[in-house]
Protein backbone atom coordinates (compact mmCIF):
# COMPACT_ATOMS: atom_id res chain seq x y z
CA UNK A 1 0.00 0.00 0.00
CA UNK A 2 1.50 3.28 -1.12
CA UNK A 3 0.90 5.96 1.45
CA UNK A 4 2.95 9.13 1.57
CA UNK A 5 2.89 10.46 5.11
CA UNK A 6 3.35 14.15 5.78
CA UNK A 7 5.57 14.37 8.87
CA UNK A 8 6.24 18.10 8.68
CA UNK A 9 5.39 20.18 11.72
CA UNK A 10 5.59 23.83 12.62
CA UNK A 11 7.22 24.88 15.84
CA UNK A 12 6.95 28.53 16.80
CA UNK A 13 7.44 29.70 13.22
CA UNK A 14 10.04 27.05 12.37
CA UNK A 15 9.13 24.50 9.78
CA UNK A 16 10.53 21.03 10.58
CA UNK A 17 10.63 18.17 8.06
CA UNK A 18 9.69 15.75 10.82
CA UNK A 19 8.89 16.07 14.52
CA UNK A 20 12.11 14.52 15.86
CA UNK A 21 14.76 16.72 17.45
CA UNK A 22 17.80 16.12 19.62
CA UNK A 23 17.67 17.02 23.31
CA UNK A 24 20.22 19.60 24.37
CA UNK A 25 23.34 18.26 26.03
CA UNK A 26 23.08 14.81 24.49
CA UNK A 27 24.30 15.58 21.00
CA UNK A 28 27.21 17.96 21.65
CA UNK A 29 27.40 20.34 18.69
CA UNK A 30 26.07 17.98 16.07
CA UNK A 31 29.17 16.03 15.04
CA UNK A 32 29.30 13.24 17.63
CA UNK A 33 26.89 10.88 15.87
CA UNK A 34 27.83 11.76 12.30
CA UNK A 35 29.15 8.26 11.56
CA UNK A 36 25.78 6.80 12.48
CA UNK A 37 23.43 9.19 10.67
CA UNK A 38 23.44 12.68 9.23
CA UNK A 39 21.92 15.46 11.31
CA UNK A 40 20.16 16.42 8.08
CA UNK A 41 17.74 13.58 8.78
CA UNK A 42 16.48 15.33 11.91
CA UNK A 43 13.56 17.69 12.28
CA UNK A 44 15.87 20.02 14.20
CA UNK A 45 19.28 19.88 15.84
CA UNK A 46 19.35 21.24 19.39
CA UNK A 47 22.91 21.75 20.54
CA UNK A 48 24.56 21.82 23.96
CA UNK A 49 23.68 24.55 26.48
CA UNK A 50 25.76 27.67 25.98
CA UNK A 51 26.65 30.33 28.56
CA UNK A 52 28.29 33.75 28.23
CA UNK A 53 31.60 32.62 29.73
CA UNK A 54 33.24 29.20 29.34
CA UNK A 55 32.25 26.77 32.07
CA UNK A 56 34.30 23.86 33.39
CA UNK A 57 31.24 22.07 34.69
CA UNK A 58 31.14 19.90 37.78
CA UNK A 59 33.87 17.59 39.04
CA UNK A 60 33.47 13.85 38.43
CA UNK A 61 31.87 11.45 38.86
CA UNK A 62 29.21 13.14 36.76
CA UNK A 63 27.18 10.10 35.76
CA UNK A 64 25.46 7.27 37.56
CA UNK A 65 23.26 4.69 35.96
CA UNK A 66 20.02 3.89 37.79
CA UNK A 67 17.30 1.38 36.89
CA UNK A 68 16.12 2.34 33.36
CA UNK A 69 17.65 5.74 33.93
CA UNK A 70 20.70 7.94 34.05
CA UNK A 71 21.60 10.55 36.66
CA UNK A 72 23.87 13.28 35.38
CA UNK A 73 25.50 16.32 36.88
CA UNK A 74 27.55 17.73 34.01
CA UNK A 75 27.09 21.30 35.18
CA UNK A 76 26.76 23.01 31.80
CA UNK A 77 30.36 22.47 30.71
CA UNK A 78 30.72 24.51 27.52
CA UNK A 79 33.32 26.68 25.76
CA UNK A 80 31.32 29.92 26.12
CA UNK A 81 29.22 31.74 23.55
CA UNK A 82 32.07 33.40 21.62
CA UNK A 83 33.94 30.17 21.04
CA UNK A 84 30.70 28.41 20.13
CA UNK A 85 29.91 31.09 17.53
CA UNK A 86 33.46 31.08 16.17
CA UNK A 87 34.20 27.34 16.11
CA UNK A 88 31.22 25.12 16.70
CA UNK A 89 28.30 26.68 14.85
CA UNK A 90 29.68 27.53 11.38
CA UNK A 91 30.24 23.86 10.35
CA UNK A 92 26.57 23.14 11.05
CA UNK A 93 25.50 25.14 8.00
CA UNK A 94 26.50 22.15 5.87
CA UNK A 95 23.51 20.18 7.13
CA UNK A 96 20.08 20.96 5.82
CA UNK A 97 18.58 21.16 9.31
CA UNK A 98 17.39 23.99 11.54
CA UNK A 99 19.85 24.53 14.38
CA UNK A 100 18.45 25.47 17.78
CA UNK A 101 20.88 26.63 20.45
CA UNK A 102 20.14 25.99 24.10
CA UNK A 103 21.18 28.92 26.31
CA UNK A 104 21.70 29.39 30.05
CA UNK A 105 22.87 32.22 32.28
CA UNK A 106 23.66 33.31 35.80
CA UNK A 107 21.67 36.54 35.53
CA UNK A 108 18.86 37.94 33.40
CA UNK A 109 21.41 40.13 31.63
CA UNK A 110 23.55 37.11 30.74
CA UNK A 111 20.59 35.32 29.18
CA UNK A 112 19.90 38.47 27.16
CA UNK A 113 23.52 38.87 26.10
CA UNK A 114 23.92 35.26 24.98
CA UNK A 115 20.63 35.49 23.06
CA UNK A 116 21.68 38.72 21.36
CA UNK A 117 25.06 37.35 20.28
CA UNK A 118 23.62 34.09 18.93
CA UNK A 119 20.95 35.99 17.01
CA UNK A 120 23.65 37.45 14.77
CA UNK A 121 24.74 33.95 13.78
CA UNK A 122 22.93 32.99 10.55
CA UNK A 123 22.99 29.24 11.21
CA UNK A 124 20.92 29.63 14.39
CA UNK A 125 17.19 29.34 13.71
CA UNK A 126 15.79 29.37 17.24
CA UNK A 127 16.86 29.54 20.88
CA UNK A 128 15.88 27.12 23.60
CA UNK A 129 16.09 28.80 26.98
CA UNK A 130 17.28 26.54 29.77
CA UNK A 131 15.58 27.72 32.92
CA UNK A 132 15.65 24.26 34.33
CA UNK A 133 19.15 22.86 34.73
CA UNK A 134 19.20 21.13 38.12
CA UNK A 135 22.99 20.91 38.28
CA UNK A 136 24.22 24.47 38.63
CA UNK A 137 23.60 26.82 41.50
CA UNK A 138 22.63 29.83 39.46
CA UNK A 139 21.15 30.12 36.04
CA UNK A 140 19.31 26.90 36.05
CA UNK A 141 16.50 25.80 38.20
CA UNK A 142 16.70 28.92 40.35
CA UNK A 143 14.97 30.79 37.53
CA UNK A 144 12.81 27.92 36.44
CA UNK A 145 11.24 27.03 39.75
CA UNK A 146 9.18 30.19 40.11
CA UNK A 147 6.76 31.51 37.48
CA UNK A 148 7.79 35.17 37.96
CA UNK A 149 11.53 34.60 37.46
CA UNK A 150 10.93 32.14 34.62
CA UNK A 151 8.73 34.68 32.86
CA UNK A 152 11.29 37.43 33.38
CA UNK A 153 14.04 35.34 31.74
CA UNK A 154 11.80 34.78 28.74
CA UNK A 155 10.89 38.50 28.53
CA UNK A 156 14.58 39.45 28.58
CA UNK A 157 15.47 36.88 25.92
CA UNK A 158 12.53 37.89 23.72
CA UNK A 159 13.65 41.50 23.94
CA UNK A 160 17.17 40.48 22.85
CA UNK A 161 16.35 38.36 19.82
CA UNK A 162 14.07 38.12 16.84
CA UNK A 163 14.44 34.33 16.77
CA UNK A 164 11.74 31.98 17.98
CA UNK A 165 12.18 31.29 21.69
CA UNK A 166 11.49 27.89 23.21
CA UNK A 167 11.31 27.75 27.00
CA UNK A 168 12.63 24.51 28.50
CA UNK A 169 10.75 23.81 31.68
CA UNK A 170 11.80 22.02 34.80
CA UNK A 171 9.66 19.18 36.14
CA UNK A 172 10.90 20.00 39.64
CA UNK A 173 7.98 22.33 40.38
CA UNK A 174 4.67 22.03 42.16
CA UNK A 175 2.53 23.15 39.25
CA UNK A 176 3.89 22.68 35.72
CA UNK A 177 0.81 24.31 34.18
CA UNK A 178 1.38 27.53 36.11
CA UNK A 179 4.99 27.61 34.84
CA UNK A 180 3.93 26.94 31.26
CA UNK A 181 1.32 29.67 31.31
CA UNK A 182 3.73 32.17 32.84
CA UNK A 183 6.34 31.73 30.10
CA UNK A 184 3.67 31.71 27.39
CA UNK A 185 2.40 35.00 28.75
CA UNK A 186 5.99 36.31 28.68
CA UNK A 187 6.20 35.60 24.98
CA UNK A 188 7.65 32.11 24.57
CA UNK A 189 6.96 30.72 21.10
CA UNK A 190 7.10 27.08 22.20
CA UNK A 191 7.82 24.94 25.26
CA UNK A 192 10.19 22.04 25.82
CA UNK A 193 9.21 19.68 28.56
CA UNK A 194 10.67 18.18 30.51
CA UNK A 195 14.23 18.76 31.69
CA UNK A 196 15.64 16.15 34.09
CA UNK A 197 14.18 15.29 37.48
CA UNK A 198 16.31 16.03 40.51
CA UNK A 199 17.56 12.80 42.02
CA UNK A 200 20.49 11.11 43.70
CA UNK A 201 22.22 7.80 44.31
CA UNK A 202 24.50 6.63 47.10
CA UNK A 203 27.51 4.41 46.61
CA UNK A 204 27.18 1.98 49.50
CA UNK A 205 30.75 0.69 49.09
CA UNK A 206 32.17 4.17 49.58
CA UNK A 207 29.27 5.18 51.84
CA UNK A 208 28.91 8.53 50.04
CA UNK A 209 26.86 10.17 47.29
CA UNK A 210 27.64 8.57 43.94
CA UNK A 211 27.82 11.92 42.14
CA UNK A 212 30.46 14.47 43.13
CA UNK A 213 27.69 17.07 42.86
CA UNK A 214 25.59 14.94 45.27
CA UNK A 215 22.37 15.45 43.28
CA UNK A 216 21.84 15.14 39.54
CA UNK A 217 19.19 15.12 36.87
CA UNK A 218 17.40 11.87 36.11
CA UNK A 219 16.62 11.01 32.50
CA UNK A 220 15.80 7.93 30.47
CA UNK A 221 12.81 5.59 30.30
CA UNK A 222 12.38 5.82 34.09
CA UNK A 223 11.05 9.39 33.73
CA UNK A 224 8.82 8.86 30.70
CA UNK A 225 5.50 8.51 32.53
CA UNK A 226 6.15 11.75 34.39
CA UNK A 227 7.19 13.62 31.26
CA UNK A 228 4.14 12.34 29.43
CA UNK A 229 1.83 13.39 32.26
CA UNK A 230 3.30 16.89 32.21
CA UNK A 231 2.91 17.23 28.44
CA UNK A 232 -0.66 16.02 28.83
CA UNK A 233 -1.44 18.53 31.58
CA UNK A 234 0.09 21.49 29.76
CA UNK A 235 -1.20 20.62 26.28
CA UNK A 236 -4.65 22.09 26.74
CA UNK A 237 -3.62 24.97 28.96
CA UNK A 238 -1.40 26.80 26.48
CA UNK A 239 -1.74 27.75 22.82
CA UNK A 240 1.92 27.48 21.90
CA UNK A 241 3.36 24.18 20.61
CA UNK A 242 5.13 21.69 22.87
CA UNK A 243 8.28 19.65 22.40
CA UNK A 244 7.88 16.48 24.46
CA UNK A 245 10.91 14.69 25.86
CA UNK A 246 11.79 12.25 28.60
CA UNK A 247 12.79 8.65 28.03
CA UNK A 248 11.88 8.32 24.36
CA UNK A 249 13.59 5.31 22.81
CA UNK A 250 11.19 4.24 20.08
CA UNK A 251 8.62 5.51 17.61
CA UNK A 252 5.93 4.20 19.95
CA UNK A 253 7.27 6.30 22.81
CA UNK A 254 7.29 9.38 20.58
CA UNK A 255 3.73 8.72 19.44
CA UNK A 256 2.56 8.71 23.05
CA UNK A 257 3.93 12.23 23.47
CA UNK A 258 2.36 13.39 20.21
CA UNK A 259 -0.99 11.88 21.17
CA UNK A 260 -0.73 13.67 24.52
CA UNK A 261 -0.42 16.94 22.62
CA UNK A 262 3.23 17.42 21.69
CA UNK A 263 3.99 18.92 18.28
CA UNK A 264 7.54 17.60 18.27
CA UNK A 265 9.65 15.30 20.41
CA UNK A 266 13.29 15.24 21.45
CA UNK A 267 15.64 12.32 21.98
CA UNK A 268 18.31 12.54 24.66
CA UNK A 269 19.41 9.57 26.72
CA UNK A 270 17.99 7.29 24.00
CA UNK A 271 20.93 8.26 21.80
CA UNK A 272 23.33 6.84 24.37
CA UNK A 273 21.51 3.51 24.24
CA UNK A 274 21.12 3.41 20.47
CA UNK A 275 23.31 5.69 18.33
CA UNK A 276 20.63 5.64 15.63
CA UNK A 277 17.79 6.31 18.05
CA UNK A 278 16.64 9.54 16.36
CA UNK A 279 16.31 7.95 12.92
CA UNK A 280 14.75 4.81 14.35
CA UNK A 281 12.13 7.00 16.04
CA UNK A 282 11.41 8.83 12.76
CA UNK A 283 11.07 5.48 10.97
CA UNK A 284 8.83 4.15 13.73
CA UNK A 285 6.50 7.14 13.54
CA UNK A 286 6.31 6.88 9.76
CA UNK A 287 5.60 3.16 9.88
CA UNK A 288 2.78 3.64 12.37
CA UNK A 289 1.23 6.35 10.22
CA UNK A 290 1.44 4.18 7.11
CA UNK A 291 -0.11 1.21 8.88
CA UNK A 292 -2.92 3.27 10.40
CA UNK A 293 -3.61 5.33 7.30
CA UNK A 294 -2.53 8.58 8.91
CA UNK A 295 -1.75 11.08 6.15
CA UNK A 296 -0.49 13.92 8.30
CA UNK A 297 1.22 13.63 11.67
CA UNK A 298 -0.90 16.55 12.84
CA UNK A 299 -3.91 14.22 12.89
CA UNK A 300 -2.39 12.45 15.86
CA UNK A 301 -1.52 15.54 17.88
CA UNK A 302 -3.56 15.51 21.07
CA UNK A 303 -5.75 12.67 19.80
CA UNK A 304 -5.61 10.95 23.19
CA UNK A 305 -7.14 14.07 24.73
CA UNK A 306 -10.01 14.00 22.26
CA UNK A 307 -10.58 10.31 22.87
CA UNK A 308 -10.44 10.76 26.65
CA UNK A 309 -13.12 13.45 26.36
CA UNK A 310 -15.49 11.37 24.32
Amino acid at each position, binding site marked *: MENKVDLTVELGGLKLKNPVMTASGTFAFGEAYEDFFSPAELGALVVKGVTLEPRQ*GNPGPRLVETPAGLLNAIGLENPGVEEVIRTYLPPLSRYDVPVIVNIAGNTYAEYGEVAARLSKCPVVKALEVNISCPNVKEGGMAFGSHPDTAAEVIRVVKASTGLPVIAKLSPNVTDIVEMAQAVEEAGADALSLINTLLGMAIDIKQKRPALANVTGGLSGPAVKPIALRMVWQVARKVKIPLVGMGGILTGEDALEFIMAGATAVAIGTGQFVNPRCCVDVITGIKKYCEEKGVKNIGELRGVAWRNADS
Partner: protein
Amino acid sequence: MKYHVPHASVVGQWNTGGNIFLLTLSCPEIAAEARPGQFAHLRCGNTLDPLLRRPLSIFQAEAQKGLLSFCYQVVGKGTQLLSKLQAGAQVDVMGPLGRGFDTEISGKRIGLVGGGMGIAPLVFLGRMLARHNQVQGFWGARTKELLPPLADQFPSGDSGVEVACGFPYLVATEDGSAGRQGLVTGLLEEWLEQEPFDRLYACGPRPMLAAVHRLAQARGIPLQVSLEAVMACGVGACLGCTCEKGPGDGGAGAEGTGNPVHRVRHQDAPNSHAAAETSAGSLAAEKRLKVCQDGPVFWAEEVRWDGE
Protein backbone atom coordinates in the same frame (compact mmCIF):
# COMPACT_ATOMS: atom_id res chain seq x y z
CA MET B 1 34.93 5.59 10.97
CA LYS B 2 32.78 4.37 13.83
CA TYR B 3 30.38 1.53 13.21
CA HIS B 4 27.17 0.48 14.87
CA VAL B 5 26.70 -3.26 14.52
CA PRO B 6 23.38 -4.14 16.17
CA HIS B 7 23.71 -7.90 15.67
CA ALA B 8 27.32 -9.02 16.00
CA SER B 9 27.45 -12.76 16.69
CA VAL B 10 29.23 -14.25 19.61
CA VAL B 11 31.87 -16.72 18.43
CA GLY B 12 32.72 -17.88 21.89
CA GLN B 13 33.11 -16.90 25.48
CA TRP B 14 35.57 -18.33 27.92
CA ASN B 15 35.85 -17.91 31.68
CA THR B 16 39.59 -17.62 32.20
CA GLY B 17 39.31 -18.08 35.94
CA GLY B 18 37.91 -15.99 38.76
CA ASN B 19 35.48 -13.54 37.27
CA ILE B 20 37.50 -12.76 34.16
CA PHE B 21 35.95 -13.50 30.79
CA LEU B 22 37.16 -13.50 27.23
CA LEU B 23 34.42 -12.71 24.73
CA THR B 24 34.98 -13.09 21.00
CA LEU B 25 32.64 -11.61 18.41
CA SER B 26 32.43 -11.87 14.68
CA CYS B 27 32.42 -8.22 13.72
CA PRO B 28 34.44 -7.61 10.55
CA GLU B 29 33.73 -3.86 10.24
CA ILE B 30 35.10 -3.02 13.66
CA ALA B 31 37.85 -5.69 13.61
CA ALA B 32 39.24 -4.22 10.40
CA GLU B 33 39.78 -0.77 11.89
CA ALA B 34 40.35 -1.33 15.60
CA ARG B 35 43.69 -0.13 16.97
CA PRO B 36 45.29 -1.00 20.32
CA GLY B 37 43.92 1.24 23.06
CA GLN B 38 40.59 1.84 21.38
CA PHE B 39 37.37 0.53 22.86
CA ALA B 40 33.96 -0.71 21.83
CA HIS B 41 30.65 0.13 23.45
CA LEU B 42 28.44 -2.91 24.07
CA ARG B 43 24.82 -3.25 25.07
CA CYS B 44 24.38 -5.89 27.71
CA GLY B 45 20.98 -7.14 26.56
CA ASN B 46 17.75 -5.78 25.19
CA THR B 47 16.07 -4.70 28.39
CA LEU B 48 16.10 -1.24 29.98
CA ASP B 49 18.10 -2.23 33.04
CA PRO B 50 20.99 -1.87 32.62
CA LEU B 51 20.18 0.94 30.23
CA LEU B 52 23.60 2.11 29.14
CA ARG B 53 26.28 0.45 27.09
CA ARG B 54 29.51 -0.78 28.63
CA PRO B 55 32.82 0.45 27.24
CA LEU B 56 35.27 -2.45 26.90
CA SER B 57 38.81 -2.05 25.68
CA ILE B 58 39.71 -4.18 22.71
CA PHE B 59 41.83 -7.18 23.64
CA GLN B 60 42.44 -8.39 20.13
CA ALA B 61 41.25 -7.57 16.62
CA GLU B 62 41.92 -9.96 13.78
CA ALA B 63 41.09 -8.17 10.54
CA GLN B 64 41.43 -11.24 8.32
CA LYS B 65 39.12 -13.37 10.42
CA GLY B 66 36.81 -10.45 11.25
CA LEU B 67 37.13 -11.28 14.93
CA LEU B 68 37.06 -8.90 17.83
CA SER B 69 37.68 -9.94 21.40
CA PHE B 70 37.36 -8.40 24.81
CA CYS B 71 38.83 -9.41 28.11
CA TYR B 72 36.77 -8.09 31.00
CA GLN B 73 36.05 -8.61 34.64
CA VAL B 74 32.50 -9.04 35.92
CA VAL B 75 31.98 -6.05 38.19
CA GLY B 76 28.24 -5.35 38.01
CA LYS B 77 24.91 -6.05 36.43
CA GLY B 78 26.00 -5.22 32.87
CA THR B 79 29.14 -7.33 32.77
CA GLN B 80 27.26 -10.12 34.58
CA LEU B 81 24.77 -10.23 31.69
CA LEU B 82 27.56 -10.08 29.12
CA SER B 83 29.28 -13.03 30.75
CA LYS B 84 26.20 -15.19 30.11
CA LEU B 85 26.38 -14.77 26.33
CA GLN B 86 27.06 -18.02 24.51
CA ALA B 87 28.28 -18.78 21.01
CA GLY B 88 25.60 -17.87 18.50
CA ALA B 89 24.06 -15.10 20.62
CA GLN B 90 23.93 -11.60 19.20
CA VAL B 91 25.23 -8.44 20.75
CA ASP B 92 24.88 -4.75 19.83
CA VAL B 93 28.32 -3.14 19.45
CA MET B 94 29.61 0.33 18.57
CA GLY B 95 33.22 0.88 17.66
CA PRO B 96 36.05 1.29 17.30
CA LEU B 97 35.87 4.31 19.59
CA GLY B 98 38.39 6.74 21.02
CA ARG B 99 42.05 7.44 20.37
CA GLY B 100 44.33 4.43 20.71
CA PHE B 101 48.02 4.20 21.54
CA ASP B 102 50.63 5.78 19.30
CA THR B 103 52.18 2.95 17.32
CA GLU B 104 54.35 5.03 15.00
CA ILE B 105 57.58 3.85 16.55
CA SER B 106 60.28 1.39 15.54
CA GLY B 107 63.70 0.23 16.62
CA LYS B 108 63.10 1.35 20.21
CA ARG B 109 63.08 -0.15 23.69
CA ILE B 110 59.53 -0.13 24.96
CA GLY B 111 58.06 -0.92 28.35
CA LEU B 112 54.40 -1.80 28.87
CA VAL B 113 52.99 -1.53 32.38
CA GLY B 114 49.59 -3.09 32.99
CA GLY B 115 47.54 -3.50 36.13
CA GLY B 116 44.62 -5.95 36.27
CA MET B 117 42.31 -5.58 33.31
CA GLY B 118 44.60 -2.81 32.11
CA ILE B 119 46.88 -5.53 30.80
CA ALA B 120 44.36 -6.45 28.08
CA PRO B 121 44.86 -3.52 25.66
CA LEU B 122 48.62 -3.65 26.26
CA VAL B 123 48.80 -7.23 25.03
CA PHE B 124 47.17 -6.05 21.79
CA LEU B 125 49.60 -3.12 21.64
CA GLY B 126 52.65 -5.18 22.49
CA ARG B 127 51.98 -7.75 19.80
CA MET B 128 51.91 -4.97 17.25
CA LEU B 129 54.93 -3.07 18.56
CA ALA B 130 57.04 -6.20 19.01
CA ARG B 131 57.36 -6.54 15.24
CA HIS B 132 59.60 -3.49 15.05
CA ASN B 133 60.68 -2.82 18.61
CA GLN B 134 62.13 -4.48 21.66
CA VAL B 135 59.14 -4.82 23.96
CA GLN B 136 59.08 -5.74 27.64
CA GLY B 137 55.82 -6.20 29.58
CA PHE B 138 55.25 -5.67 33.32
CA TRP B 139 51.98 -7.13 34.48
CA GLY B 140 50.48 -6.73 37.93
CA ALA B 141 47.33 -7.82 39.71
CA ARG B 142 46.05 -8.25 43.23
CA THR B 143 46.06 -12.00 42.83
CA LYS B 144 46.72 -14.60 40.13
CA GLU B 145 43.05 -15.02 39.24
CA LEU B 146 42.75 -11.35 38.35
CA LEU B 147 45.39 -11.55 35.66
CA PRO B 148 43.89 -11.64 32.17
CA PRO B 149 44.82 -14.64 30.03
CA LEU B 150 48.47 -14.50 29.08
CA ALA B 151 50.38 -16.58 26.59
CA ASP B 152 51.44 -19.45 28.80
CA GLN B 153 48.06 -20.11 30.36
CA PHE B 154 45.78 -19.64 27.43
CA PRO B 155 44.33 -22.39 25.24
CA SER B 156 43.81 -20.47 22.04
CA GLY B 157 41.85 -23.15 20.21
CA ASP B 158 38.39 -22.71 21.67
CA SER B 159 38.08 -18.96 21.43
CA GLY B 160 38.88 -18.44 17.77
CA VAL B 161 41.46 -15.84 18.68
CA GLU B 162 45.08 -16.61 19.05
CA VAL B 163 46.58 -14.88 22.00
CA ALA B 164 50.24 -15.00 22.66
CA CYS B 165 52.16 -12.05 23.86
CA GLY B 166 55.02 -12.52 21.48
CA PHE B 167 57.26 -10.56 23.81
CA PRO B 168 58.70 -11.16 27.26
CA TYR B 169 56.92 -10.04 30.38
CA LEU B 170 57.32 -10.06 34.15
CA VAL B 171 54.50 -10.61 36.59
CA ALA B 172 53.89 -9.25 40.07
CA THR B 173 50.94 -10.03 42.32
CA GLU B 174 50.17 -8.37 45.61
CA ASP B 175 49.62 -11.71 47.33
CA GLY B 176 52.51 -13.45 45.62
CA SER B 177 50.26 -16.06 43.97
CA ALA B 178 52.00 -15.48 40.63
CA GLY B 179 55.33 -13.93 39.78
CA ARG B 180 56.97 -11.64 42.27
CA GLN B 181 55.09 -10.52 45.37
CA GLY B 182 54.52 -6.77 45.30
CA LEU B 183 53.44 -4.01 43.00
CA VAL B 184 54.10 -3.95 39.29
CA THR B 185 55.65 -0.51 39.63
CA GLY B 186 58.31 -2.10 41.85
CA LEU B 187 59.28 -4.39 38.96
CA LEU B 188 59.43 -1.42 36.63
CA GLU B 189 61.52 0.66 39.00
CA GLU B 190 64.09 -2.11 39.42
CA TRP B 191 64.29 -2.61 35.68
CA LEU B 192 64.81 1.10 35.10
CA GLU B 193 67.79 1.06 37.44
CA GLN B 194 69.49 -1.39 35.07
CA GLU B 195 68.20 -0.47 31.66
CA PRO B 196 66.28 2.49 30.26
CA PHE B 197 63.27 2.56 27.97
CA ASP B 198 62.69 4.92 25.06
CA ARG B 199 58.99 4.94 25.73
CA LEU B 200 56.50 3.60 28.26
CA TYR B 201 52.83 2.73 27.94
CA ALA B 202 50.60 2.13 30.95
CA CYS B 203 47.05 1.04 31.60
CA GLY B 204 45.56 0.20 34.98
CA PRO B 205 44.26 1.73 38.19
CA ARG B 206 44.85 5.45 38.64
CA PRO B 207 47.37 5.11 41.52
CA MET B 208 49.43 2.78 39.33
CA LEU B 209 49.31 5.24 36.44
CA ALA B 210 50.39 8.06 38.72
CA ALA B 211 53.31 5.98 40.02
CA VAL B 212 54.42 5.10 36.48
CA HIS B 213 54.10 8.77 35.57
CA ARG B 214 56.41 9.75 38.43
CA LEU B 215 58.99 7.14 37.40
CA ALA B 216 58.82 8.15 33.74
CA GLN B 217 58.90 11.87 34.44
CA ALA B 218 61.94 11.58 36.71
CA ARG B 219 63.81 9.85 33.88
CA GLY B 220 62.43 11.88 31.01
CA ILE B 221 60.80 8.85 29.36
CA PRO B 222 57.75 9.68 27.22
CA LEU B 223 54.69 7.90 28.58
CA GLN B 224 51.24 7.18 27.23
CA VAL B 225 48.49 6.25 29.66
CA SER B 226 45.05 4.85 29.05
CA LEU B 227 42.43 6.30 31.39
CA GLU B 228 39.29 4.69 32.65
CA ALA B 229 36.05 6.62 33.16
CA VAL B 230 32.35 6.09 33.59
CA MET B 231 30.79 6.84 30.21
CA ALA B 232 27.34 7.25 28.77
CA CYS B 233 27.61 8.11 25.06
CA GLY B 234 31.18 6.96 24.29
CA VAL B 235 31.42 9.37 21.36
CA GLY B 236 32.02 12.81 22.88
CA ALA B 237 28.40 13.90 23.10
CA CYS B 238 27.46 13.89 26.78
CA LEU B 239 30.58 15.21 28.54
CA GLY B 240 30.02 12.71 31.34
CA CYS B 241 33.60 11.40 31.28
CA THR B 242 35.66 14.58 30.95
CA CYS B 243 38.74 15.14 33.08
CA GLU B 244 41.04 18.04 33.81
CA LYS B 245 43.72 18.87 31.31
CA GLY B 246 47.37 18.88 32.24
CA PRO B 247 50.00 21.41 31.26
CA GLY B 248 51.34 19.76 28.14
CA ASP B 249 50.31 18.48 24.77
CA GLY B 250 52.50 15.40 24.74
CA GLY B 251 55.37 17.06 22.96
CA ALA B 252 57.26 20.06 24.28
CA GLY B 253 54.94 22.05 26.55
CA ALA B 254 54.55 25.65 25.49
CA GLU B 255 55.74 28.36 27.82
CA GLY B 256 52.51 29.80 29.11
CA THR B 257 51.19 32.85 30.88
CA GLY B 258 51.23 30.88 34.11
CA ASN B 259 48.09 30.58 36.13
CA PRO B 260 49.32 30.96 39.72
CA VAL B 261 46.86 28.43 41.11
CA HIS B 262 47.95 25.94 38.51
CA ARG B 263 51.60 26.51 39.36
CA VAL B 264 51.13 26.13 43.08
CA ARG B 265 49.39 22.83 42.59
CA HIS B 266 52.22 21.54 40.51
CA GLN B 267 54.83 22.72 42.95
CA ASP B 268 53.08 20.71 45.63
CA ALA B 269 53.63 17.58 43.66
CA PRO B 270 56.93 15.74 43.85
CA ASN B 271 59.14 15.69 40.75
CA SER B 272 56.90 18.14 38.99
CA HIS B 273 59.00 21.25 38.57
CA ALA B 274 59.30 20.54 34.89
CA ALA B 275 55.54 20.45 34.60
CA ALA B 276 55.21 23.72 36.47
CA GLU B 277 57.72 25.35 34.17
CA THR B 278 55.93 24.24 31.06
CA SER B 279 52.44 25.15 32.22
CA ALA B 280 50.49 26.17 29.17
CA GLY B 281 48.59 28.66 31.29
CA SER B 282 45.07 29.16 32.40
CA LEU B 283 43.42 29.05 29.00
CA ALA B 284 44.64 25.61 28.08
CA ALA B 285 44.08 24.38 31.60
CA GLU B 286 40.44 25.47 31.44
CA LYS B 287 39.67 23.10 28.64
CA ARG B 288 38.75 19.60 29.66
CA LEU B 289 39.55 16.32 27.99
CA LYS B 290 36.88 13.92 26.85
CA VAL B 291 38.17 10.52 27.93
CA CYS B 292 35.94 8.78 25.36
CA GLN B 293 36.97 10.88 22.38
CA ASP B 294 40.25 12.71 23.08
CA GLY B 295 41.41 9.51 24.81
CA PRO B 296 41.17 7.05 26.42
CA VAL B 297 44.90 7.13 25.61
CA PHE B 298 46.75 10.34 26.47
CA TRP B 299 50.34 11.44 26.71
CA ALA B 300 50.99 11.71 30.44
CA GLU B 301 51.56 15.49 30.19
CA GLU B 302 48.11 16.00 28.71
CA VAL B 303 46.55 14.75 31.95
CA ARG B 304 46.38 16.70 35.20
CA TRP B 305 47.97 14.69 38.01
CA ASP B 306 48.21 17.29 40.76
CA GLY B 307 49.68 15.66 43.84
CA GLU B 308 49.09 12.11 42.68
